[in-house]
């Protein structure tokens, strides 16, 4: 393929319509091309002119420009109003109130509450109507109080696991232990970590 030689004269120099349009932006700031509906053209030009005008306007001393998109700032709220007098000496010592969840719930997604029915566990301080805090993530060990599945029901008992023997024991002499034979599966819902007993 042959190229026709380009006359030296046409290289470089001024080309009409090339380069950034005059007054099309802020010096030093890159500009971009955008396609807009013809009917919106006037409104957009108007908006740009207004913004340019605002930008160019001298800022009065002591004034701050309004932010177009104000950042969100979280400001800690103090409990004391700032009084004209002496500030509270306790302000430096403010801590969060005690939260019972912190004490009773170690693993939130694995913790469940159950209501106690019956009195087979009174020896362990668990009474009818108490609320049990049960953590499913804990491994049930010998001596733990557990909620187990017995005959399709959730049952609270103490787990006995010794010498190849697995039993669910009550803490009340009136109730015999539930024994598990070899091959019989013991299903455990979770380990009881606390029981909540109202004192009146």
């Amino acid at each position, binding site marked *: 393929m042959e190229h026709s030689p380009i006359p030296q004269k046409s290289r470089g120099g001024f080309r009409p319509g090339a380069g950034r349009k005059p007054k099309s932006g802020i010096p030093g700031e890159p500009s971009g091309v955008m396609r807009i509906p013809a009917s919106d053209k006037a409104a957009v030009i108007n908006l740009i002119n207004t913004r340019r005008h605002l930008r160019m306007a001298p800022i009065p001393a002591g004034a701050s420009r309004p932010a177009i998109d104000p950042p969100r700032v979280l400001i800690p709220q103090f409990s004391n109003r700032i009084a004209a007098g002496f500030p509270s000496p306790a302000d430096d010592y403010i801590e969060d109130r005690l939260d019972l969840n912190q004490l009773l719930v170690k693993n939130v*997604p*694995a913790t469940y509450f*159950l209501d106690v029915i019956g009195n087979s566990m009174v020896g362990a301080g668990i009474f*009818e109507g108490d*609320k*049990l805090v049960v953590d*499913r993530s804990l491994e049930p060990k010998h001596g733990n109080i557990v*909620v187990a*599945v017995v005959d399709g029901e959730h049952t609270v*008992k103490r787990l006995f696991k010794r010498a190849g023997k697995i039993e669910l024991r009550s803490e009340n002499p009136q109730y015999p232990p539930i024994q598990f034979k070899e091959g019989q599966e013991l299903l455990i819902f979770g380990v009881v970590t606390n029981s909540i007993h109202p004192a009146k």
Partner: protein
Amino acid sequence: MDVNNFYVSCERVFNPSLEGRPIIVLSNNDGCAVARSNEVKSLGIKMGQPWFQMRDLAQQHGIIAYSSNYTLYADMSNRVMAILSQFSPNQEVYSIDECFLDLTEFQSLSLVDYGQQIRQRVKLWTGLPVCVGVGPTKTLAKLANHLAKKNPVFNSVCNLNSMNPKEQDRWLSHTAVDEVWGIGTRLAPKLTGMGIRTVLNLKNSDPVTLRSWFGVVVEKTVRELNGIICLELEDISSPKQQIMSSRSFGSYVTRREDLEEAVSSYTTRAAEKLRRQGSVAGSIYVHIRTNPHQKNEPQYGQGMTIPLPEATDDTLKLVKAATWAVRRLYKAGYDYQKASVILSELLPRDVLQQDLFSHDASNGTSTRMKLLDEVNLKMGENTLRLASNGIHQTWGMRSGNRSPAYTTRWTELPKAMAL
């Protein structure tokens, strides 16, 4: 990750006597089956099958039907998602019981073992059985999940990445094309008609040709089946662009007052969601309709959008607009079956544009609304509500056999027998 028979499994966690028995969970108003236990599936009952059609079968086989208990399901879902978030920094909660995890950073581990860890932890902490599918794309991961669920050989965890291409294709050739994510029941027969019966057929199809027939979604699906990522993990923590509250009534509604009550209640719900995500709405859309399946009854359905003078999250203002719309839309002489409320043009509350001519000097959520939300959070849903929501709510949902809110209400906790 996907929970097996999620709603049914939730019921079983708190009522172990249901283990091994045929259970279904019915949709709002006890209309049709939305979840089935395996025992029910094997009786041939389909998803979405109306309850009245299976009543005889249910009696014959002792199927236990539950009304849906979304309070319980939502809480269990939140627990599952919280546990899963411990396994990857990038999580997309796709639905109430499905979730994608980005495991790119964990590829040096055996992902089958990792999947087993995920499965065991969810099972231990919540009692819910889950399946895990691993793949190079979301479409393949979902397919792997399906394989894990249907084939006991995988022990509930299937990793397509660890298979050689031949083995992978063998599994794909044994799976029907309608199991692919995004290939609906409408599309599948058309593909089958073109000779694309299995997932492998679809994988080996020309994406460009299929695009010209079925659109870009199918093209993307084919590419995804070939391991090319077209669907990124979506961050769902970004606030919703629209909030909808829509429900069928428990029984047909004919009076305008009842319709207003219902729409007022739905708007209240939507406004609560709106405040929870920290947004304000610029417009509200209200739609009412009769039952399209009642072909012999006169039909009517109409909706309208009401632009709000000022974007707001105030229940009172939104209800005022919504009930105004109902008065406009309502026509006497029809049996209404459903109403919907959609809040849109949502903006974050803290960039709220004040109306120049507004008399309302309050900025952001009013004290009134904060009080409303706080009281209802503390004392239970709907403790404090607008009188316009109605007292008796004759249009309310039927939920004949709903299980207790085991995990969210102190008065409905499960029982531990000490007997």
